[in-house]
């Protein structure tokens, strides 16, 4: 690691005050992305502000709302019995990620802000990576792009957005509670990340000095019929090749509401809204689930080594929907 200045913040206010606009400054939460990328020399902050003591550790569940503090560890949210029962998709997306060690360390805010696992991004010996070095090109385009995105990517960057938990948040219409020098604001989780377009180095709509304080979302009784299905190269401790977060409201056999979000296949957290629409009023069977899955991947753009992803993704969505349909919720 390159040398840097270390500071501790004990409140959101002190974290923001410690932020230096004239210096590359990073907030340090669990460190499982930040310190990793600092060691790899991919990110080079001159100042690191430890935010582990600033609070934001609350998990508040009421009849119809859930609030998760930014600093809650993945393992602690995952272990919440009530949450497991009421919104299984959320706790499953956490439990199926990373390892025991990493889930103990990693925070929820850090999780959604984690960076892509694109090997060309993570290895500075590759000179072409628009995300790391704007304008340098994209080594993945003609390289080994088996893990890369088929939805929401651009000609400048085809990196996959890696978080599992983010798919549950976008499916649940979560909002993000943010504070910065210009004050506090709320934004829809769906507006937190931006697709790569021509500026893949810009990943979120947060200002550099803005701190995430927490996530909030409405929870409804029907969300107990939800799940997170993750398909990967091995059964545990691996990122998704394709995943689906699904929740279904079923009334008299027909779908009233569906939520579908896709992981492992897209450049940003990905909500398959057209596929959701297609299910409304339908009975959940092999044909309707397959139809929704086809719609979810209708605009997929595969590259040389990830041509398997649209098919794998469709099968993942269809299977997740059928499994959710069969749940006793």
């Amino acid at each position, binding site marked *: 690691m390159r040398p840097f200045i270390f500071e501790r913040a004990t409140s959101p206010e002190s974290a923001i005050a410690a932020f230096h606009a004239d210096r590359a400054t990073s907030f340090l939460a669990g460190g499982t992305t930040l310190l990793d990328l600092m*060691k790899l020399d991919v990110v080079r902050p001159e100042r690191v502000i430890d935010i582990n003591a600033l609070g934001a550790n609350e998990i508040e569940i009421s009849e119809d709302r859930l609030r998760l503090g930014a600093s809650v560890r993945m393992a602690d949210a995952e272990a919440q019995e009530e949450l497991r029962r009421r919104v299984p998709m959320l706790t499953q997306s956490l439990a199926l990620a990373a390892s025991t060690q990493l889930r103990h360390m990693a925070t929820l805010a850090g999780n959604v802000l984690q960076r892509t696992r694109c090997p060309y991004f993570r290895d500075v010996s590759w000179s072409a990576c628009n995300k790391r070095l704007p304008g340098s090109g994209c080594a993945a385009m003609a390289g080994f792009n088996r893990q890369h995105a088929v939805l929401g990517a651009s000609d400048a960057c085809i990196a996959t957005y890696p978080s599992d938990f983010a798919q549950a948040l976008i499916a649940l219409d979560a909002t993000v509670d943010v504070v910065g020098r210009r004050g506090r604001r709320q934004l829809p989780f769906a507006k937190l990340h931006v697709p790569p377009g021509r500026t893949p180095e810009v990943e979120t709509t947060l200002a550099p000095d803005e701190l995430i304080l927490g996530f909030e979302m409405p929870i409804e009784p029907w969300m107990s019929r939800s799940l997170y299905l993750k398909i990967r190269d091995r059964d545990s401790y691996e990122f998704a090749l394709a995943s689906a977060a699904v929740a279904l409201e079923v009334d008299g056999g027909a779908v009233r509401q569906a939520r579908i979000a896709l992981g492992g296949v897209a450049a940003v957290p990905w909500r398959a809204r057209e596929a959701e629409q297609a299910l409304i009023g339908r009975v959940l069977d092999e044909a309707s689930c397959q139809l929704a899955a086809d719609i979810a991947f209708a605009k997929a753009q595969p590259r040389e080594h990830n041509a398997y992803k649209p098919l794998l993704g469709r099968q993942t969505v269809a299977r997740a929907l059928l499994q959710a349909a069969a749940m006793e919720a």
Partner: protein
Amino acid sequence: MSAIHVTTKINGDVVDYVCEADETLLDVLRNRLGLTGAKEGCSTGDCGACSVTIDGRLTCSCLVLGAEADGREIGTIEGMAKGDELHPLQRKFLEHAALQCGICTPGILVAAKSLLEHNPKPTETEVRFGLAGNLCRCTGYDKIVRAVMDAAQEMRRA
């Protein structure tokens, strides 16, 4: 760069050290405190060879700064045996020959101890998933899993 003064507890003893901002807890344990049980396999959170507990929670010490340990309690492999008396997990690893080169062993023992504290009666699947963050290039895991199951049984009887 200014040195950072840290007061912590390691395996029950109060320990003071001074480190640089860019030193990880693993660096501090190994290079400053002579606690070389935790190993550096990957340094990027993948292998678990650096596993320690912080305030009782299993973590990768390669992704924690030495400065972050201030005011916390660290548990390392060096604290596992009571003097000459091995922990049941350590004994079972020997009995089952659950190690070859041994690089992964300290991390796996620390992780297995933490697993059994949370779940004294794990199924084989739970052991495999619980220890997924600890990679071993030598054993093929089978003997490790058997040693952990066996130790768990013995610890339940004790």
